[in-house]
């Protein structure tokens, strides 16, 4: 079974702190994604990566950066956390789209609260 793990289930940080959210997948997937999920707004794509060291902005990249140094690991960084970044953060992975398979596999989520 595909396994996508996230470093924390719950996280509480203070405004202005630098926050790292880590995601690891064990299926040798080329693509990895970071979403945030908010009530009434659904899932919104923050960043995605289709290869090591490659990244592309999603719909809401402002205030975030990402790092992918190894194929299995994709990190989301909040450079200076703000209260409006309080949310559920979901990581996902999938095979390369060249394979014409498009299913994404999700981690359990990290509920981040910024106070």
């Amino acid at each position, binding site marked *: 079974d595909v396994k*996508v793990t996230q470093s924390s289930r719950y996280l509480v940080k203070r405004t202005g702190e630098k926050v790292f959210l880590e995601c690891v997948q064990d299926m040798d997937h080329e*693509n990895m994604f970071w979403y945030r999920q908010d009530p*009434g*707004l*659904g*899932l919104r*794509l923050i960043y*995605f990566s*289709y290869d090591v060291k490659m990244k592309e902005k*999603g*719909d809401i990249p402002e205030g975030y950066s990402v790092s992918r140094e190894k194929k299995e690991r994709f990190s989301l960084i909040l450079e200076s956390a703000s209260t409006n970044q309080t949310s*559920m953060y*979901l990581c*996902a992975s*999938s095979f390369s*789209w*060249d394979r014409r398979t*498009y*299913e*994404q*596999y*999700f*981690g*359990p*989520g990290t*509920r981040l609260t910024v106070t």
Partner: protein
Amino acid sequence: SQQGEEDPQALSIQEGENATMNCSYKTSINNLQWYRQNSGRGLVHLILIRSNEREKHSGRLRVTLDTSKKSSSLLITASRAADTASYFCATVGFSGNTGKLIFGQGTTLQVKP
């Protein structure tokens, strides 16, 4: 940007009844997928239907796709309390060569025992 819109937003049924959720989208798609999310957890992929398919089955799930109306429906037959969850449709478009998913807002299903 949100493409899919699910209807209804919330659905409450008794165990054993069927549950139907609908999804509408705006642009041409390569495929449409349905995901389930249990409360406070990640999403789980349920089923994928390609744009050249009209119906697909998987266990108690039946998905239909009408590309002329830009809509899809998910039917869960003989529902169980364990089916209580939020259900999301997600579309993959034809733009570029990416398979980015665009999610709808979801339907919250409650199955009462």
